[in-house]
């Protein structure tokens, strides 16, 4: 069930629109480069930034400088994916490169806007913008784009994108606890295996899958070390940079990423020994949760940290959640390994598209404890209904446990930055005041 094919000319619905299409593409290309350069200009003024961020920065700089070099030079097939629900191990095992296409550019969202209803998720708007204009070549180069039907936006995204790239939809069950859901999902994963084998022309064997799973485990090991370092009393790295490290996983080859992350972890360990922090200890420790935060949308992390908060962790599918959960490699047989991957992709996932809300609540409480969190920021993208729906009961539970919270409802556009800044600053001040009242040293 693959619709669309690679290299399809983006036939505008109306030939007269061809001009418009070209104009939209030009504008996006220009604005994207500007916003990326702006980000790096601001970063270059920061002191104390770990030098090992360089390989990750290089990936993101290419968004402006060389959009066709964001992905590593490789002769492998490229498989685009739109969610964590796609087990990347299978793609590596099929000898291809997974590329996570979830997009964070407000300019791209603008370019895609025309095809969506008023209140729509900016992530799918941006992805559509990039695919439609072809400004980032990777959105068009993929040999297959896999879209799991996690939320309603993604359900409908396939039809839009299949005008430009081959698309395969993967149906994700929403009720984790039922046996029928699991069996259904196991079958979907097998359908994915067949599609990948067909596209790449390579068979996914048990040995290749074990290798791929080993590759992922090495990355996950570094990721866990990284997250554990962030639990330290000392803020060793800015939250925005931490998000960037995870974000870079979207575009980097697993082995390259692992190598870069290992170097970074070594540097952070040294910094820990030297007590070198990026944020003063007086900064209240903040957890960010909710809708994904994808480069170049560093709006929320920057707001929090520029207001004097320490963004010590996040519970986002774009970073903190990305590489945490691990599948078993030592399953006895190939089919068992597929089940293990299927389970890993869905069961521990705390995305609110699942009916189960307890998993996310438990995870948040655990993170609040582990990272010594003082305040929680809920990030809700306009149009991201699952997070919005889940928020009220979740807020009540957290409030009952005495956790300070701030809800930010926004999209990718920088328009509301200033009013948000006021709110975030007030929140950080409240947390500081709270710390004083609680008698902790500031």
């Amino acid at each position, binding site marked *: 069930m693959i619709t669309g094919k690679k290299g399809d000319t983006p036939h505008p619905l109306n030939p007269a629109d061809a001009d418009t299409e070209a104009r939209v593409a030009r504008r996006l290309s220009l604005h994207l480069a500007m916003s990326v350069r702006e980000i790096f200009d601001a970063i270059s003024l920061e002191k104390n930034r770990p030098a090992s961020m360089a390989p990750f920065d290089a990936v993101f700089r290419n968004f402006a400088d060389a959009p066709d070099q964001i992905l590593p030079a490789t002769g492998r097939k490229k498989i685009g994916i739109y969610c964590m629900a796609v087990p990347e191990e299978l793609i590596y095992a099929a000898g291809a490169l997974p590329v996570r296409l979830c997009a964070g550019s407000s300019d791209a969202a603008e370019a895609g806007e025309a095809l969506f209803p008023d209140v729509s998720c900016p992530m799918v708007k941006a992805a559509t913008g990039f695919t439609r204009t072809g400004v980032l070549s990777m959105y068009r180069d993929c040999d297959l784009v896999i879209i799991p039907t996690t939320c309603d936006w993604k359900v409908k995204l396939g039809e839009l994108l299949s005008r430009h790239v081959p698309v395969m939809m993967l149906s994700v069950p929403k009720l984790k606890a039922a046996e029928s859901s699991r069996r259904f999902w196991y079958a979907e994963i097998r359908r994915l295996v067949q599609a990948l084998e067909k596209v790449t022309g390579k068979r996914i064997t048990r040995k290749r899958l074990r290798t791929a799973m*080993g590759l992922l485990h090495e990355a996950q090991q570094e990721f866990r070390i990284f997250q554990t370092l962030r639990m330290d009393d000392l803020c060793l790295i800015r939250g925005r940079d931490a998000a960037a490290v995870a974000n870079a996983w979207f575009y980097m080859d697993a082995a390259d990423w692992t190598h870069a992350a290992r170097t970074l972890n070594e540097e952070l360990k040294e910094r820990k020994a030297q007590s070198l922090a990026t944020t003063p200890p007086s900064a209240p420790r903040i957890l960010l949760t909710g809708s994904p935060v994808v480069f170049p949308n560093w709006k929320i992390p920057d707001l929090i940290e520029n207001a004097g908060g320490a963004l010590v962790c996040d519970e986002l599918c774009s970073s903190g959640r990305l590489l945490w959960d691990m599948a078993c*490699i*030592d399953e006895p047989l190939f089919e068992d390994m597929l089940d293990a991957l299927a389970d890993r992709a869905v069961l521990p996932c705390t995305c609110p598209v699942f009916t189960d809300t307890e998993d996310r609540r438990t995870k948040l409480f655990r993170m609040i404890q582990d990272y010594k969190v003082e305040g929680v920021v809920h990030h809700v993208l306009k149009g991201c209904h699952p997070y919005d729906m889940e928020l009220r009961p979740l807020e009540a539970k957290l409030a009952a446990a005495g956790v300070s919270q701030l809800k930010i409802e926004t999209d990718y556009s920088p328009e509301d930055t200033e009013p948000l800044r006021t709110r975030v600053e007030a929140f950080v001040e409240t947390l500081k005041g709270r710390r004083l009242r609680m008698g902790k040293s500031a």
Partner: protein
Amino acid sequence: MRIDRIRLLVQALCFVFLIYGGLLGLSIGTAIPTMSCIYAEGRGGSCFLYPFQRFLSLPWSSLFGSVAAAFLIYLGTFFIWALVFGKTFCGWICPLGFLQDLLTKIREAMGIDGSRFAWATRDRFQWVKYALLVLLILLPMGIGNSLLGLPRFTPDLAVPFCQICPGKPFIPLFYGDTSHILIDFSSLTKIIMTSLSMLIAGLFLAAGFVKRRYLCAFCPMAALLSLFDRIGFVGLRKKGEACTRCGNCFRACPMEIREIADLRDRKHMVTQDCMLCLRCIEVCPEDKALQATLLGFPVFSASAEGFLKRQARTAVLPESGNKSVKNADPGTIPSEH
């Protein structure tokens, strides 16, 4: 070393001891809570259930009279074994469990996919082991006494559970004794019991090759031992707040215990089917989410680090692959030729 490898080794040693130990004059008694079959001549200790059923078939006047002391000592011995080792008997010692695990190993080595109970099926048949337990108590009692005014049962029903236990046909085979593989036509009761025995023996072989630990789900000894789940020396604890419900433990569990993954609010996880194989701890990637305890002290805990270390031994890393392909494109998985 992986826990299930260590376990297989311990099982093999226990198997040899329990089956052949008697040939060297070794014995650990006759009240062992495990299927070390009474029909094995050179056994190094024998199953609690045979003498238990024999005791129960005595007339009540003697069971509660002349042999009462012997019966109590006997029960006490069982109690101590069960209290100290509990379900580790099922996972680490039981010869029938070992044979089933061997069948599973053979199946896996042949690359044949296993099967699992549908959740509803597993839930629906959990009462069977308790029913067998009740029967193995009531039927012998009815031989020596009249229950509720019923006529006494025929002595052919003596030790009814042993007559159908798959240990009876299989374990004597390890001495070349095939005398228990038969259908006895001497009486109607015998015909029924021996036919049942052959049926269950067939099931043991066939199902053992299809599903892990198939017959353990119906074992009355597990039902008896599960009385000690809470008070036993060996425990399995879960820290619900650390659990992500990723399901690794559930998939790994040979007894397909769903509760281990699904329940967050339960601390003691030795459930009625648990055999303390500890495989769940081995595959759990969350720090201290699962812990094996001895007298309440943790002896083996789940951890991300330990998980990754154990898993890395199974992973085939690209470095060990074909060197000539390696430099072509870093990160590529070498193809097999």
